[in-house]
Structures are given as C-alpha cells and as structure tokens.
C-alpha cells in the first residue's frame, strides 16, 4: 500500500502562523514600561504640597538662599 501523502504546501505559512504571534507578543511587553512611569509622575504631582516639601528641605539645610527657620 502507498504511504499517506505528506503535507507539501503551506509549510512556511504554518510556521509563521505559529511564530509571528509569539514574536509580536514578546515585543509588545515593552509597553509595560511607559504607562506606569507616566502614572508615577502624575500621581507624584497630584497631591504634591510644594510648601510642605520646601519647609522640610529648608529645615534639612540644603538651601543657601534660605536658612532653616529660627537661624
């Protein structure tokens, strides 16, 4: 008896169908970096109290134009 006919066509397309989604899937995971960073900046400034931060920095003595209160 003769052997069943092997698959002769569409071999590359079959390989591509398997590999391309994986390739793009791996590449797309780099999106995971940009959005969290933007959110981090937005969250930082949302409730940012510049006066409070300035007072804390002033007391720490990092400024030259402003001495800590009481000095």
């Amino acid at each position, binding site marked *: 008896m003769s052997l069943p006919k092997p698959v002769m066509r569409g*071999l*590359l397309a079959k*390989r591509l169908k398997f*590999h391309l989604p*994986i*390739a*793009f899937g*791996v*590449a*797309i995971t*780099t*999106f995971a*970096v*940009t959005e969290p*960073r*933007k959110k981090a*900046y937005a969250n930082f*400034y949302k409730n*940012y109290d*510049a*006066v409070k*931060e*300035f007072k804390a*920095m002033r007391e720490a003595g*990092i*400024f*030259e*134009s*402003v001495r800590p209160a009481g000095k």
Partner: protein
Amino acid sequence: MAHPSQLGFQDAASPVMEELLHFHDHTLMIVFLISTLVLYIIVAMVTTKLTDKLILDSQVIEIIWTLLPAMILILIALPSLRILYLMDEINDPHLTIKAMGHQWYWSYEYTDYEDLGFDSYMIPTQDLAPGQFRLLETDHRMVVPLNSPTRILISADDVLHSWAVPSLGIKMDAVPGRLNQTAFITSRPGVFFGQCSEICGANHSFMPIVVEAVPLEHFENWSSMMLQDT
C-alpha cells in the same frame, strides 16, 4: 543630581523634562520592540528546516517591510515634533537671568529690577562641608523662584561653554559674541545640579552649575540680601 551606577535620566524637575522623559521611554520602547522582533525572526529563520525556493518578487513581504517602518517612523516623529515646538514656547517669562561662561566659572546677572551680578565658582574638594557633593557644589547658586517661567540668556566671555542642568532638561551652548535664549519652569523646590558641557580648557570639568528653586518671597529676600552684599 546624578547618582552612582545610574542608567536613566535624573528625575524631571520641569514640565519640559517630564515630556522629554516620556518621549524617550516611548522611543526606546519602539527600539526594543524592533530589536526583539528582529532577533526573534533571525533565530526563527536560522533554526528552520524549511527551504524556500520562491525567493524572487515577494510583493507581500516587501509591502509589509516598507509600510511598517514608515508607520513606526511617523509614530516617533509626531511626539518628537510636538516636544520640539513645546520647548520653543516662551510665554512671557517672569524673570530673566543672564549666565555668562568664563574660564572656568559661571557668572549670573539678574538685571530686571536692580543690578545684581555674582560669580559662581566650584567649591574645591578640600573645602567641602560634610554632605556636600564633590565637583558639583558652587560658592554661589543661581536662585530662581518656584513655578515661575524664567528666561535665561546664555553667552560666554572667552571660549565655548555650555550651560546644562539635566533635571530641568536644559542644555544650551554658551558662545562668545552670541546670546542664546532658553526658558524653564521649576515644578518643585529643590537644588538641581549641572556641569559645563562644552570642552573649554583645563578646568572644563570643574565649573558646575547649581540652580536653587525656592518660593518667590524667599527668592526676593535672597536677591535683596545679595544686593546688599555686593
């Protein structure tokens, strides 16, 4: 300021620098995406047992690898141009400061109301107080009011220098005989460091820049005090 083994940008202290940071993330992400995709395709091509005998005139793939890069380039160009024009918006600054580069120090002039000018020399390493940063601290800092659009005019007295403060997203060449203008807004109070960014001689690495952002009333007190001292 920069810290040891740092890889990325310093935290942004001005809105423009925030935009630049996000644009850099966006573009670097695209670069990584393309590199990952190409690497994966190379590995897939190299590890296949299939051989393609139809190697001429593949219209489909040609169209794909022409259109896809074109679209990616547009995806990069649009935010890039947006930031470029954003950086050029100088809307009515509240203050103008002149920064002059010399060998090897910066001098700052605040001449909007009175004639205030002072030099800013690096503090030598042996004279540093505990907690101060080596090669970054100066004897007089450029103080600016917080959240105020500030214009800075940059020039030089002798050779080329460059006034740069990374966390504010500023780098502008100081060219003798030329006035370069840029503007910034500090989003938060603090002390921001930079270094001369154009080779200018023996002590090019030893003429840093320090910008101090404080609320307006403290800036006014400081400038009155400086005027009395000079």
